């Protein structure tokens, strides 16, 4: 059985109704992450971007998440309160389908690190700079199962076995491990 452990989950709650579209979050982020710290300003380097379409009243601050090497095959649309949103408007990925969350010079992916710093900031800087209160920082304690990852692997393998058969999966695993060792 998996062991239960306590873990602090850092959250930024985004209230899109409160966003005034000013992009102060982008300003604070790009300044914080420049080197030396606060020396450079460039929202294109920011790890938070406000997806803005003022005439359609769309304002969504989105944080940079994981890097995705490929874009999605299909794009869904959401209608919320009568407003139509592209799925990408909520997506945190740094992906080939758009130019946000990439260093403008190198194209390298950017990812929000919650303003990791020494000493630790009380709140990420974007939250501190959002006087509209669209961004709220919350920490909560969660109980997580330590070996949850293992379970994921198990589920994945089982579905592979279902799909391709036991032998094929075993063959593939040995070939990959041979090539990795080689």
């Amino acid at each position, binding site marked *: 059985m998996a062991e239960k452990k306590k873990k602090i989950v850092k959250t930024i709650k985004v209230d899109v109704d409160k966003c005034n579209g000013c992009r102060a979050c982008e300003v604070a982020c790009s300044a914080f992450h420049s080197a030396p710290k606060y020396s450079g300003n460039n929202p294109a380097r920011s790890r938070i971007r406000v997806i803005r379409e*003022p005439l359609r009243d769309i304002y969504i601050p989105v944080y940079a998440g994981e890097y995705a090497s490929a874009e999605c095959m299909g794009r869904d649309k959401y209608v919320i309160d009568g407003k139509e949103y592209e799925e990408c408007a909520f997506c945190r990925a740094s992906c080939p389908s758009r130019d946000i969350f990439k260093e403008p010079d190198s194209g390298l992916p950017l990812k929000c690190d919650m303003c990791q710093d020494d000493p630790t900031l009380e709140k990420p800087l974007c939250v501190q700079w959002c*006087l509209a209160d669209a961004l709220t920082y919350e920490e909560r304690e969660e109980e997580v199962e330590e070996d949850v990852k293992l379970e994921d692997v198990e589920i994945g393998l089982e579905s592979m076995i279902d799909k391709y058969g036991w032998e094929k999966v075993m063959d593939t695993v040995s070939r990959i491990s041979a090539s990795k060792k080689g």
Partner: protein
Amino acid sequence: MRYAETGFNLEVDLTRGNIERVATDPRDTELYLGGLGTNAKILWDRVPPETDPFSPDNLLIFSAGLLCGTPATGCNRTIVSTISPQTLLMAFSMMGGFWAPELKYAGYDKVILRGKSPNLVYLWINNDKVEIRDASHLKGKGAVETAELIRHELKEPKAQVAAIGLAGENRVYFASIEQGRSSASRQGIGAVMGDKGLKAIVVRGTKDVNVAKPAEYMELCNEVLKYIKFRNENPIPGVMPILAGLGSPQEMKVHDEKWHTENFMWGNSRVRRKDFWNDEIARQWAETLDTMRTRLISCYNCPMTCGATISPPGLPTYMMKCFSKLTYTMAAFSDLEFGLGIAQSATEYGVDGFSTPQVMAFALELYENGILTDDDFPGMPADNEGRFRWLLDRIVRREGIGDVLANGTYWAARQIGKGAEEYAHNNIKKHEQLPLKLSMLNPIYFLMYSTGEKINITQIEGQFPQAPFFTVEEREDFVRDWFQVPDDKFKQILLDWEPRGEKSMPYYPTVQMCCDIVDWQERMHYIDDALGMCSGLSSFPLKPPYHIHNYPKFISAGAGIDMDEDKLTQATKRYRTLVRANNIRRGMRRKDEAPPQNHWKKRFPDLEKELLDTYYKFKGWNEQGIPTKESLHELGLDYVAEDFESRGIYSETENPSSEILAEAKNN
């Protein structure tokens, strides 16, 4: 390395289609800071006074302020400078929004346009790649519509667009340049853009703007943010709600318009409706605003939400700012629903929200008084709202009487004749003003109205309370944490200032005190206009977060220019004088420096003369308002003195050039 600024301007010759990236001289930044300051220098150097506003030799300069693109809250203004077709003087209208920081991130401080394109074009600035593109498909399109179409065709949703509408294309003298939720509206700069065949300037930038002392600069920014929070939570007691907080007057938030509707004038700035506001109107107007207003919105990096997205039923959505909420409503004796509706068309057409309603009310007044007749208004509807919409359509197309009205009330009255001049009564330097008519002369406002070269009272007033507090306790409370004053003497003036009696208007504050107060107020506006700071966080409100004591630190830590209060005051005086020099060279003299004749009922000619004499002397100007050789020398502006000498400006002032231009226009 250059800090805060990029050190490069874009020089665009629209006649030849030539584009150059030109390095600027850092010494000019030290002397004139940036924004308005360096714009004034460029106009002085390159636009001689004989230049007609619609000559290809007139320059149209779009400048970011010195600190735009840095984290300084509210520093997002674009300062647009040119020669105004309406005033024939130097115009420096400004806009907030998102354009100036984007220009900085693209790697430029200014875009300087000269010449004229034979076809309608737009300029596309994408970092180092700059191109002039065909805009024939955008001809006649609305300013907001144009921005959307361009972003779509370039597939650049994050590009910032400054565009003109039909009014600018047709060179309406009060045409604006619209951008984001803001616009540069005053003095007809949109007409100059249209004359140059330029529909829009589109910018996208992804480069860095650096500051000289990062940690120090960020600390200053954090202090400002903290103080904004404090001021938001602690409005100033004892003053009108719109003066109690920060930002532009928070017109998009307030429902109670009793003060504006009962104290400002209706129609062609003549009728005061003292008992206008009642519960039923309050209910109706609140309902209108609540139904049409989708969201309160801000400019770049500012928490103040002075604007709003407005969706009038059956019309496209647009973004509104400040007092244009009421200008159309009140000029047309109508209601808020009409005002917010017609402002949608006005925004797309790209016209000034102050001048336009006044021009239309002026036309209808001439009609009511038989100076204009039915022949001038063929097909005009019978109802007031319909008439305003009809007139707006004629003006922006320059059709029929619209062609005359499109020149503003001053020039239209001269063209119409038959006593029409009497009806163009609310102008300063040929430019329409806020619809205010008051009872007794206010000496501080007299000086500001007379000598302000932005020719707009909101762009010179601020900092100092508009009226004395009634009780000593209130005054003591006010001065207690009034650290923004440049000198403690201002506190004493306020403490002693009484609503009536010996120490009351118009003889107190004394003439000398009035000079000091006006000079401080004006200085703060000029600093804002060089740095690109919104006056809503600085020169306009009482007790703002930016002031003469922290500005030098911002400039030192931001731009890396060694700065203190004296040096900043001197630099500001230098380019303020240069603005005046441009105008003096174009013929502006003492006779042009007066408020509208009927602004106050009770006037004091001797006092007014003394005020102007003393203020001129205080500023280092002679009795004609011309900066003296000595004061120019002290500011390092000997080249101005030499120019004045060679033009004979010091020896004779009988036929100044703006008069010549005005005559030429009239004939």
